[in-house]
């Protein structure tokens, strides 16, 4: 039992429209399974689901009538076409009768139930549906149409003469209608024996005895001359070892086609024409012992195949058949015999012999079109119509729907009929004609399964008589069989229970026993409760069948789905729209309440489901205010690691339902999160404004000797004027805060050396940003304070900014270059390397650079400033091998660990993060401006038009003192002094700039603690503010002794006109705190802390800490001696290196301590580059330090809290 309606291979059609026939089991066992049909025909639960799935769209898909219901592509009159009866049997004879077939035909000679089978057979067709506007609800309307259609096109059988027995006359087609048309009685039982007789009767007699004589039939002892040779031979040759009704009918069909002469007379064999009943075989003989194979051979050898049937017997020329006398007698006798047998069911008992090759299907259960739901509507009388005379068991079967329904088949093969292969199975067909020839319209009567169906009916009777067998062949109620009892409630319950038993299910597997084969074949689980069209479609999709391969029904279903109206998007809540941005169509969430089960509209959720709902609700705010407080998504997801078994639904562990006991927080953020943010922000910001929070040490002011940082600095410092440096600014804006300082410092250093940077980048934004950093921070000098053009257009130049060592303002295209963006990352960089000359021919603006660059070796230095290690890798791989100069890299602190490996080999010199940039910058700021390049001509002349506004100069550069000291040493030839300057005044300079590059300034000293670095680099103080002589904080006091025998006066100013304020006794010691410019007067501090001046000629200065020198030694100050500020602290040590002169000159030059002199003029416009101060450099560092402390504190606190909580949790457990 197979349905090919949706999976029929395309290569099987159309030559064989009887694919359904092939699906009939070949084995004989199928015939013995009629009892199975009883248990197999039952509930049709699968069918109901399928119908339900199709029902909604049946009306819409009416135009797309399934193929199996269509008739357009099927030749008229073929099997499966006429079976508009809802049965599996192809009652073509009934169809041939058309609607003219008299349902009131005389059926007195047959059992009532059998006579009324035509009514049952009037069930709706499977192969056709009304396509011309017929109401689909009218199940009979299209039947009429079909009947009309078929009646018009098909060959109508001949009629029998009046002398035919009644039952014979009642046979369909054997009795002529009043209109002279060949008709078939619908009321006739569809017995195989009668069918062939009908066929004979329907065919005109032929006068071709010579053809009969062609057969070499062995003599029949009883009717040698009467029995035709072919019949006799058939009779003798084979004792009907494989009698099948279909085979037999097919043979007869073929014979009947050619056996007609067109006169209406049957070409009956002589033995059949004579009244030799004793020699005639009865039904058992005919159908049970005949060698039907021989019959077929005889028929096929004598008669050509069936295609000529329509021409041989056109319906327009019906001829009344003539039945000769002897056959009449014989038929009468046979009629009596048959009638008696029918009455006694003996005849029916013999019929199963014909169906030994059939499918064993219970034919009367009929074909019910799956799309015609009304057929299964209990309100509908069909298919059995509950007509009188219908056996109760059939009625009950109908009522219970416990009938076998052969599945609809693919278009063109309407019914589950055995094909010719099945029909001829077991026979030696020899040169059997093609199947389609045998299935010609006129011959399909015998080939449409009527016999099989009726055989099945009868065979089922046999089974019923002998007991009902279940699917396994076990007999049920064999001994005490009765039709009514069989179909009684008890029996049906027994069958039902048997069907539903575990053994039964095990036998059937997962597939419902009611499932059709086609459904079983595709593997769909079609239990009584889980069949659906969706499952079928899904399974079909799994089989990778194209849409065009689906049946029209499924295609119609698919189309119906496509035609569904789009969901209304406005119904979606706003939160869904906000969450699913960009999703145009959002299904509105169904209202769902999480509550106790068993309420009418509540949704019962399992623990797993509820957990997922909690997660979803934490993600999506809902309007349900009654729900309990939900954990956040983080809480839900982090509460436990995901269990894959849970996801797969296989976990056996209990899933706890998350029930939060916390109070609802509302929209407020978590307090700890807020506190952490506040703490971090405050920690970073406060050091900028609160001096007391500037904790920690500033980065060192110099690199360690030999370090990668020092190497980097030295490489830049070794640049020569005019060198070209390649700067790769490979960083974006996220790391700009860290790396901008590095870029700025490197560029300043490069400019200070007189070199020319070329900026390139594979990061487009990074390139533009680097350009801005260079132009705004380094070159342009747009800030009036730093230099450039002021608001009035006057050129105001501060030291060093914007002017390189050539003495000209740095300009794009001359002193620096911005190369075009390098596209393509690694490949682009490689291309840049291969074509560097061309790539640098123009700048980013398309202007020529006039750079003479042909390779990387033309660059004095290649520096890469990168935010990622990949950038370093790219340059190390693609560029470093092409140059003899190792790279210099500057990376962010985050990228340093991964970039560090590249420092070996291809990289020489590395700067990391802001810390190295700070140190680098500090070194630069400590350096004196370099001398201008010799021969430079473009030294700007500053011509101010108005006096410049005095502004406070707060340089932080290292003060380099080169004192010219002539010292008369004491016993110690070399002295290393590190004085501590305790007071550093804030200097307010008011320079006056004249036409000559000189300026005068007046300094106002404020004796407050200021940074030593605030002093101008060239400023030499003349006095020591505050009068302190404790130079360098080393406890070193400069003292002198009154070197005269008399007391000396102490005056209030360094001149003889000064007022005498005190007197010093002879040989007394005084503290010297200063001197005047020419050194003729010394400033001393008295014991009462008063200060005054004494003539230097009267005082002998003592060697600090050594007492009075015994051997005066003249020392010359080394020109390399310097005083440097080692840090930017407010109190910086100054190292004074004194080197003994080889000349032992005893001349003692008065020691001049670090005397500071006020600047005589404002700084001149520097002809060499110097470095301006980085704003908030120290504050930034302090902010980072305090922020780092806050971070450490927060993380530590969190770790402690969590560890303690974990311990508590563990303790509770």
């Amino acid at each position: 039992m197979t349905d090919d309606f949706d999976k029929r291979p395309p290569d099987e059609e159309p030559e064989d429209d009887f694919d359904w026939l092939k699906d009939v089991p070949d084995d004989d066992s199928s015939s013995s399974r009629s009892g199975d049909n009883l248990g197999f025909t039952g509930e049709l639960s699968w069918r109901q689901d399928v119908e339900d799935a199709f029902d909604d769209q049946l009306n819409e898909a009416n135009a797309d009538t399934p193929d199996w219901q269509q008739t357009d592509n099927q030749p008229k009159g073929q099997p499966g076409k006429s079976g508009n009866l809802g049965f599996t049997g192809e009652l073509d004879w009934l169809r041939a009768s058309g609607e003219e077939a008299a349902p009131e035909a005389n059926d007195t000679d047959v059992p009532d139930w059998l006579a009324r089978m035509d009514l049952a057979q009037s069930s709706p067709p499977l192969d056709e549906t009304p396509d011309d506007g017929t109401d689909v609800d009218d199940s009979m309307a299209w039947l009429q149409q079909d009947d009309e259609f078929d009646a018009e096109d098909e060959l109508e059988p001949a009629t029998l003469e009046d002398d035919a027995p009644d039952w014979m006359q009642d046979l369909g087609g054997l009795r002529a209608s009043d209109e002279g048309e060949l008709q078939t009685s619908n009321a006739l039982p569809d017995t195989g024996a009668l069918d062939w007789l009908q066929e004979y009767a329907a065919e005109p007699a032929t006068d071709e005895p010579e053809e009969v004589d062609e057969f070499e039939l062995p003599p029949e002892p009883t009717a040698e001359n009467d029995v035709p040779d072919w019949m006799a031979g058939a009779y003798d040759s084979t004792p009907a070892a494989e009698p099948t009704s279909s085979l037999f009918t097919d043979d007869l069909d073929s014979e009947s086609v050619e056996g007609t002469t067109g006169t209406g007379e049957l070409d009956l064999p002589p033995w059949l024409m004579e009244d030799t009943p004793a020699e005639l075989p009865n039904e058992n003989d005919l159908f049970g012992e005949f060698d039907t194979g021989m019959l077929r051979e005889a028929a096929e050898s004598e008669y050509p195949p069936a295609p000529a049937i329509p021409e041989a017997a056109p319906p327009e020329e019906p001829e009344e058949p003539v039945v000769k006398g002897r056959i009449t007698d014989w038929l009468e006798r046979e009629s009596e015999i048959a009638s008696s047998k029918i009455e006694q069911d003996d005849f029916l008992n013999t019929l199963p012999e014909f169906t030994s090759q059939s499918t064993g299907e219970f034919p009367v259960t009929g074909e019910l079109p799956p799309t015609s739901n009304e057929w299964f509507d209990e309100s509908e009388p069909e298919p059995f119509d509950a007509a009188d005379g219908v056996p109760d068991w059939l009625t009950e079967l109908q009522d219970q729907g416990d009938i076998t329904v052969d599945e609809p088949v693919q278009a063109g093969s309407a019914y589950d009929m055995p094909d010719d292969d099945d029909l001829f199975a077991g026979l030696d067909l020899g040169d059997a004609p093609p199947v389609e020839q045998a299935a010609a319209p006129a011959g399909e009567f015998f080939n449409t399964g009527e016999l099989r169906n009726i055989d099945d009916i009868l065979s089922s009777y046999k089974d019923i008589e002998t007991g009902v067998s279940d699917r396994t062949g076990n007999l049920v109620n064999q001994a005490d069989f009765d039709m009514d009892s069989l179909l009684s409630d008890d029996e049906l319950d027994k069958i039902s229970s048997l069907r539903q038993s575990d053994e039964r299910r095990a036998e059937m597997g997962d597939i419902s026993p009611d499932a059709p084969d086609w459904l079983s074949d595709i593997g769909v689980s079609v239990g009584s409760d889980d069949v659906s069209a969706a499952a079928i479609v899904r399974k079909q999709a799994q089989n990778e069948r194209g849409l065009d391969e689906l049946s029209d029904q499924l295609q119609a279903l698919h189309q119906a789905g496509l035609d569904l109206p789009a969901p209304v998007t406005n119904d979606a809540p706003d939160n869904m729209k906000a969450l699913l941005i960009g999703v145009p169509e959002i299904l509105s969430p169904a209202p769902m309440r999480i509550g106790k089960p068993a309420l009418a509209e509540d949704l019962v959720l399992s623990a797993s489901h509820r957990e997922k709902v909690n997660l979803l609700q934490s993600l999506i705010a809902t309007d349900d205010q009654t729900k309990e407080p939900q954990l956040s998504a983080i809480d839900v997801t982090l509460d436990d690691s995901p269990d894959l078994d849970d996801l797969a639904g296989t976990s056996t562990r209990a899933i706890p339902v998350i029930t939060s006991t916390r109070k609802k927080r509302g929209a407020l953020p978590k307090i700890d999160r807020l506190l952490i943010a506040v703490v971090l922000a405050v920690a970073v910001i406060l050091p900028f404004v609160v001096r007391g929070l500037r904790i920690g040490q500033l980065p060192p002011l110099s690199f360690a000797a030999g370090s990668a940082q020092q190497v980097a600095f030295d490489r830049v410092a070794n640049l020569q004027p005019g060198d070209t440096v390649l700067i790769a600014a490979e960083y974006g804006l996220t790391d700009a805060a860290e790396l901008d300082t590095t870029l700025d410092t490197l560029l300043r250093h490069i400019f200070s050396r007189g070199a020319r940077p070329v900026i390139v980048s594979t990061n487009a934004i990074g390139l533009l940003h680097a350009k801005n950093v260079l132009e705004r921070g380094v070159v342009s000098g747009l800030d009036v304070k730093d230099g450039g053009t002021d608001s009035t257009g006057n050129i105001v130049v501060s030291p060093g900014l914007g002017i390189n060592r050539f003495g000209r303002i740095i300009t794009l295209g001359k002193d620096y270059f911005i190369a075009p963006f390098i596209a393509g990352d690694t490949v682009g960089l490689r291309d840049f390397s291969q074509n560097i000359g061309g790539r640098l021919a123009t700048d980013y603006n398309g202007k020529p650079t006039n750079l003479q660059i042909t390779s990387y070796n033309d660059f004095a230095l290649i520096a890469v400033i990168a935010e990622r290690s990949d950038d370093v890798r790219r340059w190390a791989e693609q560029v470093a091998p092409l140059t003899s100069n190792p790279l210099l890299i500057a990376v962010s602190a985050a990228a340093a660990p991964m970039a560090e490996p590249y420092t070996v080999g291809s990289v020489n010199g590395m700067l990391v993060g802001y810390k190295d940039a700070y140190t680098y910058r500090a070194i630069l700021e400590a350096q004196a401006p370099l001398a201008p390049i010799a021969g430079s001509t473009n030294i700007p002349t500053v011509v101010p038009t108005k006096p410049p506004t005095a502004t406070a100069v707060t340089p932080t550069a290292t003060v380099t003192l080169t004192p010219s000291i002539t010292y008369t040493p004491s016993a110690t030839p070399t002295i290393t002094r590190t004085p501590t300057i305790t007071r550093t005044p804030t200097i307010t300079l008011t320079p006056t700039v004249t036409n000559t590059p000189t300026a005068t300034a007046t300094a106002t000293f404020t004796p407050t603690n200021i940074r030593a670095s605030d002093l101008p680099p060239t400023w030499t103080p003349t006095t020591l503010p505050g009068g302190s002589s404790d130079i360098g904080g080393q406890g070193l006091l400069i003292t002198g002794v009154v070197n005269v025998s008399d007391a000396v006066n102490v005056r209030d100013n360094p001149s003889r006109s000064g007022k005498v304020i005190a007197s010093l006794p002879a040989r007394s010691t005084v503290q010297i705190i200063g001197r005047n410019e020419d050194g003729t007067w010394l400033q001393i501090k008295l014991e009462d802390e008063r200060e005054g001046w004494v003539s230097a000629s009267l005082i002998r200065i003592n060697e600090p800490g050594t007492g009075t020198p015994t051997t005066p030694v003249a020392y010359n100050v080394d020109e390399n001696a310097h005083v440097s500020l080692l840090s930017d602290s407010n109190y910086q040590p100054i190292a004074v290196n004194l080197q003994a002169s080889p000349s032992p000159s005893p001349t003692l030059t008065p020691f001049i301590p670090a005397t500071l002199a006020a600047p005589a003029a404002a700084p001149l416009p520097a002809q060499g580059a110097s470095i301006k101060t980085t704003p908030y450099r120290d504050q930034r560092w302090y902010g980072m330090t305090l922020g780092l402390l806050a971070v450490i504190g927060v993380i530590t606190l969190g770790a402690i809290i969590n560890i303690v909580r974990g311990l508590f949790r563990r303790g509770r457990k």
Partner: protein
Amino acid sequence: MTRLGSALATAIVIVVGIITFLGLVVGSSLGGLSTVINAFAFPTIANAFLQLTVITVAITVLIGIVNLVIVHLGRVFGRGKPVSQRINSLVLVVSAIGVIVLGVLERAGVLTGSPSPTTVLLEGVQVSIESALAGLVLFALVYGAYRLMRRRVTGSGLLFTLVLLLILTGALPFSTPAMRTVGIVRDWLMAVPVSAGARGILLGIALAVTVAGARVLIGQDRSYRD
């Protein structure tokens, strides 16, 4: 036909790959081999391939920009779009077109001034926003570290927290003996395990790239056929 196309694509890739490989790898220092390679002008051909690649990449950038504008124009004028989406897309389109126009006018000399409009946009808008967003990462990272062991105290969590605190503490600019000790430990961590791990990763990447390149050259890897 499909197989033929696949084979043709594979052949093209192998040939181009080998030519590029030889043209770039074999320099002038390999004697006879270099002579042969140069005789076939492989370096020149390789450069041509590289240039084609770069041009293609540049074109893809243009296509991306055009596509971006088209998509958002569709959102602005499309049906059924929320107002907020329309506004966002409109701002995006206007900004993109505005920047392009400004750049063109600036380069053409129509717009002058200092600073230039594009500079103002870049430094005033983009740099500020990106820097601010980057600064927010601090808070997220710290909060994440704060909650690291909130759910479960594990050995890995403890180890991570310990090393994190050690590295951070070692970065503090204090010169106390204890801090100097921590600094020494930190420097060791950075120099030995971290550097070793980084180099191991880089070696793995290099080997993988080499293998992948070799597979492409011999036609074993044909991901390009799709």
